[in-house]
């Protein structure tokens, strides 16, 4: 059997060196083929060097360790490297995924090395099912879009969705109107409507989504046409017939 080979991926140079030094002691015959500073580099290095193992830090900028593991798939045995995280460790244990804790003590690393040696001959297991769960546990996100990237001239602003009065579709993009003014979001109204919290954002027209918390009143004229008046805005927003049922007669 040929010697075991590995790649180390961590965004911090010192931690890469530390792991390399620790592995040299705990597993002298393991050959480190390359180091990577982020997920994308790790994926490329795996393709290029075809190692039997890849040590992946989970928290890396750009493509993180979990995404990299997904891209690497069964090309190499993945060993996650993580600073303490109870949830991640629980998930690793249950999914029988190999991991190394930072800072790694020599005994723990030696034990991991023993286990890995035994496994290295068999094909790498598929991690797909556990990766999804890990991603949810490690990077908690709220369910709906909270911050919008909106461009205004050549600056990009982050706008919190709670500050939005309404969205108006504008050819390919969407105009976002707030108390302070307006900007352009590079998403279609349709994309936005699926990402925004439907409890607070209602589509009232083919081309308009309104933040219902910024509505001050809804008026209707004799022909039944309804219009919305908004906090801190002078213009009114029309409600089309299709969506008129959202606002019952007052």
């Amino acid at each position: 059997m040929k010697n075991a080979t590995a790649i180390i991926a961590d965004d911090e140079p010192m931690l890469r060196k530390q792991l390399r030094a620790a592995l040299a002691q705990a597993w002298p015959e393991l050959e480190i083929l390359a180091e990577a500073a982020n997920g994308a580099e790790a994926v490329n290095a795996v393709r290029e060097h075809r190692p039997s193992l890849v040590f992946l830090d989970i928290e890396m900028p750009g493509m993180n360790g979990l995404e990299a593991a997904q891209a690497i798939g069964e090309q190499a045995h993945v060993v996650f490297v993580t600073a303490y995280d109870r949830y991640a460790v629980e998930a690793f244990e249950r999914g029988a995924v190999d991991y190394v804790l930072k800072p790694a003590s020599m005994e723990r690393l030696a034990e991991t090395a023993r286990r890995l040696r035994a496994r290295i001959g068999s094909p790498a297991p598929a991690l797909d099912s556990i990766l999804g769960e890990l991603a949810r546990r490690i990077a908690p996100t709220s369910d709906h879009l909270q911050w919008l990237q909106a461009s205004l001239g050549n600056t990009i602003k982050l706008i919190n969705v709670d500050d939005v009065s309404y969205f108006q579709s504008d050819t390919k993009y969407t105009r976002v109107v707030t108390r302070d003014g307006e900007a352009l979001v590079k998403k279609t109204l349709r994309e936005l409507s699926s990402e925004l919290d439907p409890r607070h954002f209602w589509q009232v027209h083919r081309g308009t989504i309104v933040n219902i918390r910024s509505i001050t009143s809804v008026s209707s004229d004799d022909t039944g046409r309804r219009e919305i008046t908004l906090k801190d805005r002078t213009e009114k927003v029309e409600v089309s017939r299709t969506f008129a049922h959202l606002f019952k007669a007052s």
Partner: protein
Amino acid sequence: MPVFRQPGFWKRLEARGDAWAAKRLSPDEFAEAVDLDRRLKANWVRWLLWYFAGIVLFTIGLMLIKGGFDSWPTAFLMANLLGMCGVVFMLSAWYGYRKWTGARARRNFVLFVGAILLGGAGGIVGDMLANHRPLAEMVPEKMSTIAGTALMMAFVAFALITSIANLRQRDSNQRMALLKGEAERERLARQTLQAELKLLQAQVEPHFLFNTLANVRYLVQTNSPDALAMLDHLIAYLRTALPEIRSESSTLGREAELARAYLEIMRLRMGGELRIEISVPEVLARAPFPPLMLITLVENAIKHGVAPLAKGNVSISARAVEGRIEVVVEDDGRGIAGAVGRGVGLTNVRDRLAALFGEGARLDLESREGGGTRARIVVPE
């Protein structure tokens, strides 16, 4: 047995009526209707007596009008007719006041006068046909008197209705404003609690600690002189960060020191490829400032701005502007175009600012097209 004698018929009818009203009316209108129903049912004998007393007086009045009605039954019938109208209008003004204010009132006024003029014209034509009198005999003076009286009555009735309605509208507006204020206060209190909880959860962040310790371990192992510096910064960080979690207020100076300790640690961890600039004037350093907000912005600048490029600058500056404190965190990293979307850190800062200062505080973030991000917190001094 007639249908209305069947057991439960009236109860069912009433239930149906209630259901219909509940569907048509808004919740507060329905509540008022229920209230009216209750009052009428409780005292219906008294209400009926009052009504009849009014009608009798009205009938006598009608008989006294010179050239008015020639028999008591006609006058009584007329008094009842007008009385019913009056009751309906008063009820409408009191309970349906929304119809009698603003633009809808103007439209209703036109309808009202139109109906009266039309009724007058109908009466004249009816009189003409019933008594076989030609139109020419309807003396113009008499017609103008009738029209004038009708219009005057319309104006008086309308003025009465709209003033009642306007009073009611004002009352309702005040009640609404009061309710809204209460709801707003309640919402803010809830928000503060939630934000505090999130803050606690967010701040128990062992990742940073263990990653830093892993670095220290390596530095010690390799006998690097940086080990001591790293430990000192970590101690400074923990000394400031740990009591923070429960404290409600801090000073800008403390927050800046926390950020400095964090940035120094990150500079060592990044192999020196980080330049730090912190300028907080002496006077502002003593100013109260909410805890763990500045550090969140600085962490973001590292995580999303500088770390992806593995080098860069982060600067923190504070100044007083027109009774407010403005704190800016600027980096020359990748910019916000790539990352974020559903992050909880910034939302947490935003919620806490809103809970603490309401409209008085703000949080802005922007990037230039080529990269670099500028985050700004403004709080009242």
